[in-house]
């Protein structure tokens, strides 16, 4: 059918063919970079691209509120460049093509200067071409699988080396874990993270027999078999731990099953990368005391900055119990970095802001100062927290300093030679072996 159609186009009447050709030529001519016309407006528009309905609303709604809160705070301080910030909220409804559509709408119709948004990798992948094409800025606040460094995207969540690897190190050293269950939901983040961890563990001398990898579908709710398998795997006489990359919704039934089958943290600790304060709020945490999570931020961390943030956040949401979590902190850092960059170049022009952002420093909420790196990732501290009975985390370990995020993982065959450098090399996938931009080359 399609061949016929394309054929039909070429054999259309001469006038149409002419128009089509003219169209293509015009199209190519018109695809020059397009910068939002902001100067005329007296506000700076900030796009918020988080799902407010559908399956991801559970995680993303809070982030929308966070940005609204941050904008509100910034406006109280007088806005940016003497202009007030104005939030433009859209609902991509957990629908990936809709993410792309809404991103396009935000940039071309609403002419936003920057977009804060996305949670899942697929939503980021979906909007990526749009941001590249229309040359705008996306701040992505969630820990992800890495293997990406794009000019238009700033990754304020953790890369695998800022979360997964320190957590495994901790378990090896502190808990003397010898046997590993890598359990995850079957999507790209767990797949990649587990690939990286598998390679890392093997490099540390862990045998293949001592690694069990298990994938479950999204929203998996019947964990009986898998928990029993974990129990069995853990009874081989070596200290066993579970590294969980299980995605949001499936965690509650997973932990409930763990608790009920009597797997205690002292027997088989579970370290999770996707379970934060928000997820624990839906759980009775008493049976889970001692299970771990690795993040770059915990609500329970006692620093003045964090205490102030929590107080103001709870006042803003008029909910004294409202929790905070890691992706919120990522947005906090990202937002402040953007404000600083805009103030530095005195413009919201994306090209200028993108160039200004690497090197910008902004305080995080855990007492350090995070820095935007040339690969568009940031430096972050890594904390390991144990679940407490009140649904908060008790930090039991942290990295001595801030860990710079690696865009490309050293453990993966395909990316071990790659780096992202948007300052010197102006390239997201610079190959250090061949000294060329563009991956491995052929």
């Amino acid at each position, binding site marked *: 059918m399609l061949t016929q159609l394309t054929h*039909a186009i070429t054999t259309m009447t001469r006038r149409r063919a002419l128009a089509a050709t003219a169209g293509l030529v015009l199209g190519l001519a018109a*695809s020059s970079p397009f910068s939002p016309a902001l100067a005329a407006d007296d506000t700076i528009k900030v796009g918020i691209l988080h799902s*407010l309905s559908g399956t991801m609303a559970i995680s993303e709604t809070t982030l929308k509120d966070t940005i609204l809160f941050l904008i509100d705070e910034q406006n109280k301080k007088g806005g940016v460049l003497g202009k007030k910030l104005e939030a433009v909220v859209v609902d991509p409804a957990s629908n990936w093509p809709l993410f792309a559509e809404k991103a396009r709408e935000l940039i071309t119709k609403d002419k936003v200067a920057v977009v804060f948004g996305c949670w899942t990798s697929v939503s980021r992948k979906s909007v990526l071409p749009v941001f590249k094409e229309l040359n705008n800025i996306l701040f992505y606040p969630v820990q992800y699988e890495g293997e990406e460094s794009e000019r238009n995207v700033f990754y304020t969540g953790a890369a695998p080396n800022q979360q997964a690897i320190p957590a495994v190190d901790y378990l090896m050293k502190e808990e003397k874990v010898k046997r590993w269950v890598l359990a995850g939901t079957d999507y790209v983040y767990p797949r990649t993270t587990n690939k990286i961890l598998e390679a890392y563990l093997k490099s540390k001398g862990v045998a293949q027999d001592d690694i069990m990898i298990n994938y479950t579908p999204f929203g998996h709710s019947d964990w009986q078999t898998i928990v029993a398998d974990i129990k069995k795997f853990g009874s081989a006489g070596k200290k066993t731990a579970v590294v969980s990359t299980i995605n949001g919704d499936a965690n509650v039934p997973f932990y409930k099953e763990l608790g009920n089958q009597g797997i205690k943290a002292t027997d088989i600790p579970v370290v999770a990368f996707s379970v934060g304060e928000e997820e624990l709020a839906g759980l009775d945490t008493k049976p889970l005391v001692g299970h771990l999570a690795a993040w770059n931020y915990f609500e329970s961390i006692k620093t003045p900055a964090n205490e102030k943030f929590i107080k103001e956040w709870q006042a803003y949401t008029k909910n004294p119990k409202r929790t905070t979590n890691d992706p919120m902190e990522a947005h906090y850092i990202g937002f402040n970095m953007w404000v600083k960059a805009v103030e530095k170049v005195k413009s919201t022009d994306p090209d200028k802001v993108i160039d200004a952002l690497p090197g910008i420093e902004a305080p995080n909420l855990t007492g350090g100062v995070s820095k935007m790196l040339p690969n568009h990732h940031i430096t972050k501290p890594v904390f390991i927290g144990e679940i407490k009975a009140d649904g908060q985390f008790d930090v039991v370990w942290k990295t001595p300093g801030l860990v710079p995020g690696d865009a490309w993982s050293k453990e993966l065959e395909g990316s071990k030679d790659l780096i992202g450098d948007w300052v010197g090399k102006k390239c997201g996938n610079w190959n250090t072996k061949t000294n060329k931009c563009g*991956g491995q080359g052929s």
Partner: protein
Amino acid sequence: MTPHILTRSLDRAAATFILVVATLGVLIPLSNLLLPQGSALHVPTYLVALWGKYVCYAILALSIDLIWGYCGILSLGHGAFFALGGYAMGMYLMRQIGSRGVYGNPVLPDFMVFLNWSKLPWYWYGFDHFAFAALMVLLVPGLLAFCFGWLAFRSRVTGVYLSIITQAMTYALLLAFFRNDFGFGGNNGLTDFKDILGFNVQAEGTRCALFLLSCLALIIAFMMCRAVVSSKLGKVLIAVRDAESRTRFLGYRVESYKLFVFTLSACMAGVAGALYVPQVGIINPSEFAPGNSIEAVIWVAVGGRGTLVGAALGAVVVNYAKTFFTSGPLAPYWLFMLGALFILVTLLLPKGIVGTFNSWRENQRSTGIAADEASAAREDGVRAPKMAE
């Protein structure tokens, strides 16, 4: 297709529809490309892409209306055919990326590189040729529909049973495509396309051409549907819908008819999916989600089941509403609006927009002795015990 089928099928409403689509198909790209950006009539590129999406959905709606509106087969899994067509096109687009992927691997798509795949799985062979991919766009959904239909219609699975197993089919495919081991990119799907037939997919010209192509495909699909439903075959289909066993006792091999339209409809859905993918820039397993298929059925119901124009219109209206409601201050409440729309349409406009308009016009025109009764009888292929009056 012989000409007399086509000419016979064109009544005034159909001609108007074709004219409108053709005009849109030409005017929107022209306005986008030729008029200056400030002009009031200028259609921005994002709207071209958006309308391109609507047009693809309209083709999908037509394909559903053909089997549901005319043959009484309610498929709750038509999104699967749409998605399969989309994947076939997506695979072609992936192969076109070549060494421009982030890892620069000339053969393997990026997701295979970082999951350490050493070579291209066999089922990806051939997709670097457009002609092959285009063939697969028709063949894969068609073949699946043929096999599925052959099994189901031969054993006379009808009504809700059929609906539920079509749902099971798309759900199974959803789970399968989610699996990264399956080799289609898992949850992330296929994305980051560069070009199609040598043209940059993001260029405005390509977008406009794709839009034009989609409109053309919609017209062709519409004419095909018209040709089918206005032929004697169409009468048989309606006969099957209204009284299946009567048709059988007249000596019609009902399962062949069902199989024919079901397969045809799946191919149409596949084409819709194939045109959809380069315009939205991503294909991902969530297209298989049963909810999507149900929603597509609802477009048809809203527009008017059993009226081809209505199906296409319904797809555009519902999706436009969705676009409209998901931005701005109404965003948090859009599901209320959408849900309410569905409820109100089924309660107040059981014949859909076009169906209601048609019967209103018929009432106006004639004394309308038969219209009401007839269209009441047309209501449903699967009749449950009637309520007592």
